[in-house]
């Protein structure tokens, strides 16, 4: 497959090929989605037995291992080489980028005082659906919340940085996005107040 491969997790898992968004996206076969998502959230290598037990908790070991084998097979049959596996382990190929990781890195950079960029809002909008929206799996929820909090804090940090640099309008835009998304978040309102005060000065 040509160009970089990105695994998209802010929706049903899909693969994007090449640099352009929406160019050559591919669905992941239903039988392989959960395994790919699980491998992506658990960086590094997964023990096959452990992963199978988590993904198919109501099956016995043999059955769960069989399900994992068939998930790998479905991915290969669909021509998607995102996972690699040996007898003991499964892992995401090093060449595959995960959009959730990109967003997490972006957020941490802003939280650590990194400069605001014009592309921040696009990243924010990309992450808004949340990680694997609607998936009830126990192993998804905490990751989803962790990323959500990171993104919210990142946007707050960005708005404060813009405000400090005198970018009142851009700070206000960011603050409004935040308050619209999370109307009950006190820190978002505090941010809006700070911008108000600065504007009246």
């Amino acid at each position, binding site marked *: 497959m040509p160009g970089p491969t990105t695994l998209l997790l802010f929706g049903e898992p899909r693969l994007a090929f090449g640099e352009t968004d929406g160019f050559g996206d591919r669905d992941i076969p239903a039988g392989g989605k959960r395994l790919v998502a699980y491998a992506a959230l658990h960086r590094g*290598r997964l023990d096959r037995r452990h992963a199978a037990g988590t993904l198919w908790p109501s099956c016995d070991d043999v059955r769960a291992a069989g399900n994992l084998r068939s998930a790998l097979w479905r991915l290969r049959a669909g021509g998607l080489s995102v996972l690699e596996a040996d007898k003991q382990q499964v892992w995401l190929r090093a060449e595959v980028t995960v959009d959730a990781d990109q967003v997490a890195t972006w957020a941490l950079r802003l939280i650590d005082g990194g400069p605001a960029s014009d592309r921040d809002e696009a990243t924010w909008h990309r992450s808004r659906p949340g990680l694997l929206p609607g998936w009830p799996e126990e192993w998804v929820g*905490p990751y989803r919340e962790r990323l959500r909090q990171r993104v919210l804090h990142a946007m707050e940090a960005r708005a404060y940085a813009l405000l400090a640099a005198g970018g009142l309008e851009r700070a206000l835009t960011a603050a409004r996005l935040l308050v619209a998304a999370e109307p009950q978040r006190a820190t978002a309102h505090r941010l809006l107040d700070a911008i108000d005060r600065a504007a009246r000065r």
Partner: protein
Amino acid sequence: MNERLTYRRRDRPETVLHVLEGPCLRVRGQPAVLPESSLRLLVYLAFRRRPAGRRVVAATLWPEVTESRAGGNLRSAMWRLRGAGAGAAVVEANGATLTIGEEVAVDLDNLSGWAERVIGGGTGPSDLTVPDGADAALDLLPGWYEDWAIVERERVRTRVLHALEQVSRGLSAAGRHAQAVDAAIAAVCADPLRESAQRALIGTHLAEGNLVEAQRTFWSYRELLAAELGVDPAPELWQLIAAARIGHLPTLAVR
């Protein structure tokens, strides 16, 4: 953390045993091709941290075979490790005892050192962070089911969870709320039923003034506890939320 481990860390080791991802042994960055039995031996010795008798090692790693067979397995695992390190031996045999080679660094040591310092309360500003590998340390070698691996997994996990909770409080106190929330959520991810982790998370939300986030955390924890264990959160947790509510009402009224 003993002195030897600290010394190793500073030394830019050429041979590193990775247990946080892998497991694998890397020599000058390159993974060494080793059979699983050799890796198990290395990891066992790394976890043990002190010399172990050959017979104990053999019986622990191969409990289901005869003593002589286990001894043979151990010899062959050691044979495959010959020349695996960069120069010095990765397993040192001293008479009837074995230890992991002096030159072998273990990736877990950095993290354990951080956890010990944090729990001991001797944290400098550089420890007020969540180091790389903390997530992996919360579920060490997940596919290894031997007793000695399970014991070490639990030990490391408990230490790291404690450290994360502690660090989240430190970060809140330092006004670094985003990092504080992140550290506490890392603990919650690893063990959603753990009350001290949930309390730490609620605490970070409250420290930042995010009452609604704190309440939401509380209610979802309450739901989880009811579904999984059929119990209610401890009274202290209720009080934490109730006190925060009262404390914050005036602020909310202003808005």
